[in-house]
């Protein structure tokens, strides 16, 4: 019977219910999309780095796991030193440059031959390998997103490049240019951001890593097969804080809207609350009824939020095809629990106010 009352009450003011559902929906969607966007980008980046085919990556001391932001602080000659180590088959320097013009990309400046040696080479879908200093290799996703084809000109870092090839995605970056040209453009002559190392056999990875650590103390030396596990929001400085702040913001929006919705509900139903009290309804029953109504509102909001998340993801991917938004059941559940907890917290004060209403005042309320 109480469930019947809760459902009827919820639909008594459809616009107010709709606003509550929308607020919870936006809250859930924000949590899912923010987490999905960060974890999607990280996962996709990690996958591409793993996909290079090298065994080890060497970075400069104090470099971040998010390699696109690490600059180019290492002398390129380090590659020769690493190449001399036992079990090292090939070493390739790469200069990484972050580009935010016309999209967010990390551009790899590579040496064509050594990159082929460590990675096994690109899978060419169209065009040919780098031949000139202005040649640009682009992966299929980026080519689609930027609407580029072989032979097109593309401006990057205030430099006009010619699209030499479209390759299969998954080799570290989406855009590749000759390292020497990029070094000149960014003023980093003879410098590299990372060194990619290929061992004579994957079993020698640990040995080679140990030797590199001895040669280059304080330089992070990471096995690429573990990169996926390293690329988490907790390993990126400030990222987890950003995610937490965004979740807190989303929860605050939901909480305040639910608070306002339930507070106005309680005010509007003052007389009804008086009636329930005259019938002998306890404070617990009144609190329970209002919290049940909030929970039901929240369930509708969660369903709307999950649907909205998929809609927003589809919209994002339509506009920016290279983006990766990872929606996982785990985070859908977490977002639902966060929204439900926030909503119940937001409704608890109005419910408490309702339960403490004087029945006579409530019955004579106009």
């Amino acid at each position, binding site marked *: 019977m109480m469930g019947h009352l809760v459902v009827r009450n919820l639909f008594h003011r459809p616009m107010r219910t709709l606003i509550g559902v929308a607020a919870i929906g936006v809250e859930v969607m924000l949590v899912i999309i923010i987490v999905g966007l960060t974890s999607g980008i990280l996962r996709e980046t990690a996958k591409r780095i793993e996909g290079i085919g090298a065994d080890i990556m060497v970075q400069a001391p104090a470099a971040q796991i998010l390699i696109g932001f690490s600059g180019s602080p290492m002398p390129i000659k380090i590659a020769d030193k690493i190449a001399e180590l036992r079990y090292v088959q090939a070493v390739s320097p790469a200069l990484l440059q972050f580009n935010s013009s016309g999209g967010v990309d990390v551009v790899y400046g590579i040496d064509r031959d050594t990159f082929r040696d460590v990675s096994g080479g690109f899978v060419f879908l169209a065009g040919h390998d780098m031949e000139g200093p202005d040649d640009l290799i682009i992966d299929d996703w980026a080519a689609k997103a930027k609407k580029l084809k072989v032979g097109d000109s593309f401006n990057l870092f205030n430099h006009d490049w010619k699209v030499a090839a479209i390759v299969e995605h998954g080799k570290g970056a989406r855009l590749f240019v000759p390292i020497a040209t990029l070094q000149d453009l960014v003023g980093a002559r003879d410098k590299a951001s990372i060194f990619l190392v290929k061992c004579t056999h994957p079993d020698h990875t640990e040995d080679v890593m140990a030797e590199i650590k001895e040669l280059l103390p304080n330089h992070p030396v990471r096995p690429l097969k573990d990169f996926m596990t390293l690329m988490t929001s907790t390993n990126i400085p400030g990222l987890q804080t950003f995610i937490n702040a965004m979740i807190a913001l989303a929860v605050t929006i939901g909480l305040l809207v639910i608070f306002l919705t339930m507070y106005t509900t309680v005010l509007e139903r003052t007389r009804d609350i008086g009636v*329930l009290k005259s019938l002998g309804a306890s404070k617990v029953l009144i609190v329970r009824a209002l919290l049940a109504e909030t929970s039901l509102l929240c369930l509708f909001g969660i369903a709307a939020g999950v649907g909205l998340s998929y809609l927003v993801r589809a919209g994002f991917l339509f506009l920016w095809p290279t983006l990766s938004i990872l929606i996982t059941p785990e985070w859908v559940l977490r977002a639902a629990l966060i929204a439900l907890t926030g909503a119940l917290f937001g409704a608890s004060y109005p419910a408490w106010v309702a339960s403490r209403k004087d029945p006579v005042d409530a019955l004579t309320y106009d």
Partner: protein
Amino acid sequence: MPITVTIRTITDGTLDPERKPLEPILKTENLWKLYHAGKVEVPALRGVNFEVFPGEAVAVMGPSGCGKSSLLYVIGGLARASRGQVLVDGNDLTAMGDAERTKLRRSKIGFVFQRFNLLPTLTAKGNIAIAQYIHGDGYDPHRFAVVTKMLGLEGRLHHKPSEMSGGEQQRVAIARAIINEPKILLADEPTGNLDTKNSDIVLEMLRRLNKDLGQTIVMITHNPEATTYFDRVVHMRDGIIVDGVPAD
């Protein structure tokens, strides 16, 4: 079904001494109710002594502001007495906390209000059934059928309050009040919002409840004609009972 108790009264409005039960079901002793308007204490009840016996139908009359509604709220456990004693079926309301008074209301008191006070989102059936739910025994279809038939509500059960006339709404309110077989039915000007025809219907319903089912009723009214349906009339003025002296 409750045991039918018929209380015969003599023509002057007092109870037949031979049939009068020993213990009143409702009794107040020196009952005071003070309200606070800022720092000023306003007495609504000033030492009310009042008794109602099982099966009695008592009308309380008096001018506006004389304390009739305050008396009803205090004896119904909705408001706390400031001083004095209220005994309902042997339970001292003044010694009870909020939760205990709530429990007592649930099991022993039924209310009917002037403005019907039906829950607008529920149908007539829902409004009656929710009282059964709150009472804790759940929905009793037999009792429900008996009460709704007696009040002539069978055809209106799936209508919301906004789809019913005032008289119908008040009959639903009466059904809700008696569905759990309360010891006392308290009615606060139940005909105050009704036209003459519907007033007569509602008063006749209350009279039948009293005569046929032995329901104890205390009704507040302004309407002198309404008192003809009741065993006894109590007059109030300035927060006290002035029995035997017409207050209006």
